[in-house]
């Protein structure tokens, strides 16, 4: 194979790549934040005593989990305006990703809640806390600590899914990679560098989150 590697064209655009990476991370952080809120509500919904609440939560979770994320992204961006809900590219993407993350996190939180000992709730009841307070001060903090590893994994996949924002022309890393690809014709270099950035970013995020997990872990 005769091919002269020339990475300089790609490196010349490092600022674009960095910007794209930054936007991707930003989108992932915002979406997981909102997604956690939605996921908590859905998880309590799935465990609720009320049938309608259980049903709603179940339909939401299984519908979103079984639908391709790209379809959801395109639906929110292109189809919702038909119903009068027109959002900008970035906000539409954040809305989609939050709802998407929420469905996955709901499942994580649900199994976290089921695994908690029953006595935890009773400890709160016995000192006169209301159900809502028990959830806020005892149940949720303990559960979140227990599911932190799954939460980290979900964040990393969410970050990788931000590459799909390129499909609606949100200028994140993959979007710029395609742009550089088309403008420079340095195809191999562009995609090698791009996937390397993703791999390294995922690796660093994973290492960082592992540190955080250790930091938040309860001393034994």
């Amino acid at each position, binding site marked *: 194979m005769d091919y002269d590697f020339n990475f300089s064209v790609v490196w010349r655009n490092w600022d674009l790549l960095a910007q794209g990476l930054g936007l991707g991370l930003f989108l992932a952080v915002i979406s997981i934040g909102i997604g956690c809120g939605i996921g908590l509500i859905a998880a309590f919904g799935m465990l609720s005593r009320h049938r309608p609440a259980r049903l709603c939560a179940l339909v939401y979770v299984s519908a979103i989990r079984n639908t391709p994320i790209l379809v959801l992204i395109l639906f929110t961006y292109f189809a919702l305006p038909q119903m009068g809900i027109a959002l900008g590219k970035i906000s539409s993407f954040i809305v989609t990703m939050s709802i998407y993350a929420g469905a996955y996190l709901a499942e994580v939180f649900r199994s976290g809640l089921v695994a908690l000992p029953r006595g935890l709730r*009773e400890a709160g009841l*016995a000192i006169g806390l209301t159900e809502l307070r028990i959830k806020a001060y005892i149940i949720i903090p303990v559960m979140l600590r227990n599911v932190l590893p799954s939460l980290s994994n979900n964040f990393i996949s969410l970050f990788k899914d931000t590459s799909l924002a390129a499909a609606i022309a949100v200028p994140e890393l993959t979007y710029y990679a395609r742009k550089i690809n088309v403008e420079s014709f340095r195809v191999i270099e562009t995609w090698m560098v791009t996937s390397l950035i993703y791999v390294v970013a995922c690796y660093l995020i994973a290492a960082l989150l592992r540190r955080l997990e250790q930091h938040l872990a309860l*001393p034994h």
Partner: protein
Amino acid sequence: MTPVLKISNLHKRFGEVEVLKGIDLTLAKGDVVSLIGPSGSGTTTLLRCVNLLEDFENGSVEIAGEAIGYRAAGEVRRRLPERQIARQRAMTGMAFQQFNRVPHMTALRNVMLGLIKTKKMHRDEARVIAETWLDRVGMGQRKDHYPGQLSGGQQQRVAIARAIAMNPQLMLFDEVTSALDPELVGEVLAVVRDLAADGMTMLLVTHEMRFARDVSSKVVFMHQGRIHEEGPPEQIFGAPRSERLQGFLSNSTI
């Protein structure tokens, strides 16, 4: 004087099975009553009904003259709203067999939680009270430890401090030493004994017969959801009347 606890004709069923078949029990201020009986006799369920951790179908429980959990509306009885129930639960303190520790809070914050959130105390005031009680149960040195760093006996003492710090009218102890290694039982019983000597009104379920005999003003023997025999400890342990109680005691280690 109004009794601290008055249980009248209490009935409780789990599905088809009636586990409490009409219990009457009254505790005056300063009484220490031990509930003994084989497993399935209903002792723990009775305790849980008093703290409203279980619903009950019939009868009433009054604490300091206030009927708890339900109000009669004509013919039907209705469960009180959650806020009311939470307030009434705080009138009693409860210590559990499994300690029910809150693992992400230090011993100190475990004790402060109810003071701040239920009693709406200021943080500083809550801290002073919590520290006082942790000292009382001998855990003052370890107030900044997390439950995971403490032994079972230490966790149980923190749990007792958490309950007693709420200044309850009545303390409930549900087999507080059953989950402990034998060498840790003593330190927990010492705390309970100390509280009894202090005049605290207490209702306890226990399998420690020697302890029940030492600490109680009255012992109640339950069998199949009924009170089978009751009386002062000297009578229950020294001169049991019924065959059932004699059988039960001969199988227990004193």
